[in-house]
């Protein structure tokens, strides 16, 4: 415990860095997952190949994927963000496809029949209707990425993994805990925040 208090400033900085990795990974992940998720929702036949590719990405151990990524992207945050983005695809693509496919058909028919263009249908009806499910998927993905981002400690990307792996190497349990406890706390807090958001967005729809 003395380690935690003595290094509070440094731990806070690593926590911020950790969040930075997660948010970076999430941003890249969403940018890639959105078009594929939308495609899978619109064209059912496209779903199967898309889901099998993301499924394969998901089962590759993240550490192994990181090792390969370092070969191409070097050390630092880049390979970590790559791994995070790849890992989140499985959760996000399927989630986006499911969320959009479950928008009530009557509302889509009405939106089209009243004269909304395809993009107006998407932004004004589909997205708000899909929001609770989308937020749920985002929650699962973010919590998973918070855990995986600790791998950043291996490749000089910083984050709470630094303390965890250094502590393990030195057999210095206090330092390991100084990384793992904030990481766990971060996951719990983010999870709770997303649950709140999910509930309020659902309450608006029912």
């Amino acid at each position, binding site marked *: 415990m003395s380690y935690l208090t003595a290094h509070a400033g440094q731990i806070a900085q690593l926590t911020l860095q950790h969040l930075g990795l997660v948010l970076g990974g999430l941003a890249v992940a969403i940018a890639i997952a959105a078009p594929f998720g939308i495609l899978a929702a619109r064209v059912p036949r496209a779903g199967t190949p898309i889901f099998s590719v993301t499924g394969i990405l998901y089962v590759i151990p993240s550490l192994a994927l990181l090792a390969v990524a370092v070969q191409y992207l070097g050390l630092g945050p880049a390979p970590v963000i790559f791994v995070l983005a790849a890992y989140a695809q499985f959760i996000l693509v399927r989630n986006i496809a499911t969320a959009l496919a479950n928008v009530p058909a*009557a*509302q*889509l028919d009405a939106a089209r*029949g*009243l004269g909304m263009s395809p993009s107006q249908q998407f932004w004004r009806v589909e997205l708000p*209707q899909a929001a609770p499910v989308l937020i749920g998927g985002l929650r699962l993905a973010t919590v998973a990425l918070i855990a995986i981002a600790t791998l950043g400690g291996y490749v000089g990307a910083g984050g709470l993994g630094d303390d965890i792996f250094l502590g393990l190497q030195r057999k210095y349990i206090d330092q390991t805990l100084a990384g793992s406890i904030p990481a766990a706390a971060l996951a719990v807090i983010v999870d709770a925040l997303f649950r709140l958001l999910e509930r309020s967005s659902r309450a608006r729809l*029912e």
Partner: protein
Amino acid sequence: MLLGPSGCGKSTLLRSVNRLVVPQSGTVYLDSEDTAEVDPVQLRRRIGYVIQAVGLFSHMTVADNIAVVPSLLQWDRARIAARVDELLDLVGLDAKRYRKRYPRELSGGEQQRVGVARALAAQPPVLLMDEPFGAVDAIVRASLQDEIARIAQHLHTTILFVTHDVNEALRLAERIVVMRDGRVEQYDTPLQIVSNPATPYVRQLFALDEEERRFDSLRASLAQRKT
């Protein structure tokens, strides 16, 4: 009024008017304009659309639902607000009480009143209604039918109305198209169709319902007595 059994193509025919369905052959004219040559999105904003499942947007208030087409047409805010109140009044809902409510807080009948108001928002010359009162109970249906008859007279809007309910057709229609298996069996006024059915199918359709129609008028008078 398009009348026929389910699967006879009456909805498909209706939806070809606002190009939700593209006809494989033939042309749909609206005011002697070939609809195939108009941008479908622009076309639909000029045609009201009411469906059985109502399809109110559950994340929007009643007012925002009614305002959908006017806001697509970029009316200014004050004009939209005034129009929303006017329409709620037209469909028999108190504007002050209903404006800010969400669809989930309304009964089925109230929801479809809002659905009708939304379809009429931008004063379309043509209104398409696809079994609009099929999902509400008989008493509510009767009052909605009266309401739409009154509105139609008031607005001089041409209404294309799909139903499988012979009573509804006789009650509301100026002209009836009887359809079966994707074909028109007869197109005429209700009186002509009842007195001179063109095919055995039409004769049977209207004869079978004689019994039920008597029951229906009984039910309607009972309903009136209750209120």
